[in-house]
């Protein structure tokens, strides 16, 4: 590759970087947490490593699937390791009694809270008791 091509390539990459900067600057707030994968301004090194590993593992898995039996259905996954059906709790019985939402959530009473800041929540502030 000649010097000219290398300079051209670097300029193109630089332009790409500037495009990314411009696009990100257009958005005034943070991206949502689950949207930071692939975003150079918010993705951490750990995110980058996870993404690269997931991508390469996915590529291998997909190629293996295609090579093994393209017309066959995929392998069934291991079911999620949750308690067996017979050991499940009754979904209709609320643990801890039948208090209503409103009983527990004193902070929704419509007033701004200025006291009780030396207490450990979620106990109710003295003023409210």
């Amino acid at each position: 590759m000649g010097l000219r091509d290398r300079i051209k390539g670097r300029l193109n990459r630089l332009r790409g970087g500037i495009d990314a900067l411009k696009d990100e600057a257009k958005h005034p707030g943070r991206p949502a947490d689950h949207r930071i994968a692939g975003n150079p301004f918010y993705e951490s090194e750990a995110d980058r490593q996870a993404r690269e590993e997931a991508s390469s593992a996915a590529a291998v898995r997909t190629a293996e699937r295609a090579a093994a039996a393209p017309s066959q259905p995929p392998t069934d996954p291991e079911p999620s390791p949750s308690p067996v059906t017979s050991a499940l709790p009754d979904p209709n019985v609320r643990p801890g009694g039948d208090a209503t939402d409103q009983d527990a959530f004193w902070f929704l009473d419509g007033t701004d809270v200025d006291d009780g800041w030396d207490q450990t929540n979620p106990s109710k502030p003295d003023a409210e008791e």
Partner: protein
Amino acid sequence: MATAEVTSTPTNGTRTRPFHVVLMTIYSVENAGIRYVSAALQREGIETTIVFLRDWVHNRLTMPSDNEFDIALDVIRQNDADLVGIGFMSSLLPMATELNHRVKMAFPDKPVVWGGIHPTSTPETCITETDFVCVGEGEIAIIELCKAVRDGEQVTEIPNIWANIDGEIHRNEPRPLIQNLDWLPYPDTADENKVYIEKDAFTIEEPWKRGAEYRIYFSRGCPYNCSYCYVSILRDVYDEKGKQFYRARSVEHILGELEHMQRTFPKVARVKIDDDTSFAFGEDWMEEFLEKYPNRIGLPFECLLIPPMMRPNMLIKLQAAGLVRVQTGIESGSAKESKEMHNRSPGNTAIMKFAEANKTMGMNVVYDVIIDNPHATEEMKLETAEFLLDLPRPYDIYFYSLNYFPGTALTRQGLEEGTLDPNLVEGANNKAWYQFRVSMDWPRSNEDKFYLALYCLASKSFVPRDFIRKLIDQRETWKKNPEPVYYLAWAANYAKMFYVAMRYFKNGELTWFKVRQYGNITQMISQ
């Protein structure tokens, strides 16, 4: 539509393999609900495959290509699916309708069920498009629907499930909400039964693993009932049945899921507790969590907290347990807008004290702020700007552009009062395609441009507060011609991003590889 028989055709006598359900979702790889439904079906011996049709990074939501739709149809064909589920949000209605149409064209005899927040909010219109609609919590309802289809039993009287049998609509009330969330399985996050479709190709993978963050839900529901939120839809759907709307899983059930995650997500570095409200639980629950989480999981975590109930002592304990970042909703700095429009308890005093406590602790904080409310007065916008200016820096903001989703209290009220154009409701409208993440170039009034600029500047530590206050003092001038302030805010965003890039460079992380990898912005959609 479904077969003319009221009962479905039995398949159990002829099948030599388990019943198979293909679940599909569009532009929603983060969809937790579909993974819960999948796991619940698997626990009953029903096979599942989940198709993730595209993901998005910014505001680039376009109709999937013919080729991508065909890949999705191939998944149904290869698995010889017995039932197809489509889950989607309101803004994606046109895409879901197109997908549904293509599925029915290719497989006219395969029943299709729609689920998710849009079908829950507008079942009357959705049921005319498809065979079944699941309203509300779907895990138990879908199990019953699958068993009924498999066994040739009645499909018209299943709670939560609306059925369209040759144009005759059967409406069924939802069953009560699941009260003991420990009944739920852990969400299905296996790789083998996930098909992720993007750029006319597919991969077999669980896309959640493409990041170092694991998102988990400790609870369902929310103590609040904000008028713009999907929670107001669900509270309306469940009415008295939803009296105990906010429900928490046990600490052991949560830790079990996280331990499973640590075995199956090799690169996870942090946990995001993605409840709309975290830790509004009892004292015993909190003590148990704070004692067990650091020893058994030990990963840093982030969550959303409610300032009016969160006290420094508890923040300190949470920080010691691994809390590194906090998100909290301001939405508006105006008590009137909060109370009368958003149906939220005014909380500026508590938020300020919460912010000061976080500052003292060195906690990373991000605040939610809603903009583009056409009914907000200038006084409300001004109060928000002044409140953001008073908050201790540094902090980040998640901006949300107000969307009118069908069925929310805000939308219902606007339609009833005639103050909201029905064409602005998502589904008919698709604003969220362009403003899922707020962008500066969305058309706004001069006044809204000016205040968005102020909000942006207020959160930038390097912009002097006195300067912003001067802009506020001269607001009558700037509102008429906001461009200089608006572009200044835009420039401040550039400066911040440039600073981030330089920090990467200084740390040796901004390599040519990285620039090249991210340089082509279209590649950021899926990597």
